[in-house]
């Protein structure tokens, strides 16, 4: 999964280069996911009280985040935070956490 994320990043870099934009970060998914880990634990392994994101299937996380965004999933704070990310960023984040080892 890490490898496929690298390939995805490389493809993005090629696309960006072709478009004349600055190359995206090689660790874009990892760096985006790190914006979640204050509350959800380093690498998505929660210390309790919040959901562990490590090992959560990619599609399930994308669906949850989209439901937070649309307001169909009840939330105290995630409906507000999810609105700060683009759909592409959410896909990167979900892919990265899916590749992490789930806590026991």
């Amino acid at each position, binding site marked *: 999964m890490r490898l496929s994320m690298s390939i995805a990043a490389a493809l993005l870099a090629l696309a960006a280069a072709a478009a004349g934009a*600055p*190359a*995206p*970060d*090689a*660790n*874009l998914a*990892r*760096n*985006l996911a*790190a*914006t*979640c*880990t*204050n*509350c*959800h*634990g*380093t690498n998505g392994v*929660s*210390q*309790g*009280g*919040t959901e562990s994101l490590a090992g959560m299937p990619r599609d399930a996380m994308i669906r949850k985040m989209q439901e937070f965004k649309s307001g169909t999933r009840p939330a*105290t*704070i995630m409906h*507000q*935070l*999810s*609105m*700060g*990310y683009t759909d592409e*960023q959410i896909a990167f984040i979900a892919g990265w956490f899916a590749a992490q080892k789930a806590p026991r």
Partner: protein
Amino acid sequence: MKRRGIESSLPMPRREFLTLAAGCGIAATLALPGCATTGSKASGRVVVIGGGYGGATAAKYIRMWSDGGIDVTLVEPNPSFVSCPMSNLVVGGSRNLAFLTVGYDNLPQHHGVKLIHDTATAVDVDKRTVRLAGGGELAYDRLILSPGIDFMWDQVTGLDNAGAQAKILHAWKAGPQTVALRRQLEAMPDGGVYALSIPVAPFRCPPGPYERACQVAWYFKRAKPKSKVLILDGNGDVTSKAALFRKAWSDEYKGIVEYRANHVLAGVDAATTTAKFDVQDDVRADVLNVIPPQRAGAIARSAGVVTANDRWCDVDFRTFESVKVKYVHVLGDAIQVAPGMPKSGHMANQHAKVCAAAVVALLSGQPPNPTPVLTNTCYSMVTDKDSIHVCSVHQWDAEKKTVLPVPGSGGLSSAMSELEGTYAFAWARNIWADTLA
């Protein structure tokens, strides 16, 4: 350039041991063919000054993201981390200092950070060295300053001496002052007045003073119901979560909390615990708690990175490198913030991750992430159990060359709740581990 450092007596970091065991030579830095498991070509020496939310996170994440390839030394004078977030619960009496205290042991043990309990006294940005109070000198390729705040005592007449400061507390750096303020409140007779002076923004933790007012009121309501909490705010209005705090004061703490805006503190009389103002009448209190005006910690001055109003450090938000001094990065409360960015512990942890990613990239010969993203989540405890939040997401704006809150994102609690209280404690547990474990 000669590279000197304090030799570590720590056991070999786990990652380096595994690398050796795999027959891949001394360090990941060599990037030998056939040693792809190390995954990083980053090498070099990073010194981090300050082990708070910013510095400790940076030290951990640079070790983690460089696969142990970058040598990281963390300089921190205190033996343990004591969290400012949640420390108002100690002032209110529902928690003790041990609850806020986390050891530094995991940073060396889990991540191979070289930890030095000392104070950095000077930076030579040409030689790229840091001098320590204990006499040592550390060389760096990249220096990360996360020095927190210093108080501008000269801004408050009568408070620029040790005697006055021992009586009129700030409790704005968690630790002995937090406990001392609690003792003053315990010793205060019922019917007394606790006055809290708030400086003109910006200051560390925008909602913190108002949370403190709630926590002291929570204590008074139960133990000293005839007592008053008097907020003397240097600002024109409550600077964070205003409607939510005002509702708590009028509903939960009716008759206890009084709020007065536009009270810029000019001076104090320590003998009579009196707050003095240029325009308004003096206020005498039984317990006077002054949060003084603040600026970046002193080591930032030595490094020459204080560039905004002689108080804060301007940085490039893609790397957190100083806009003025190369190879010096600044994190946390010490920076000149971007629009809508609070000086908070959560934000400092996020600064540290953007900076760590950039430093690892730069020391690998790669460009830093051109599109950093940061979040902020800030809970304030309104009672011992109920909480309110403010949150935001900040993305890089290529045109304005800064990070800006994403329109339509972020926001506030609809009302205080016990559910958010449980999330506030979960926030603390998780960010303390993310920063230090």
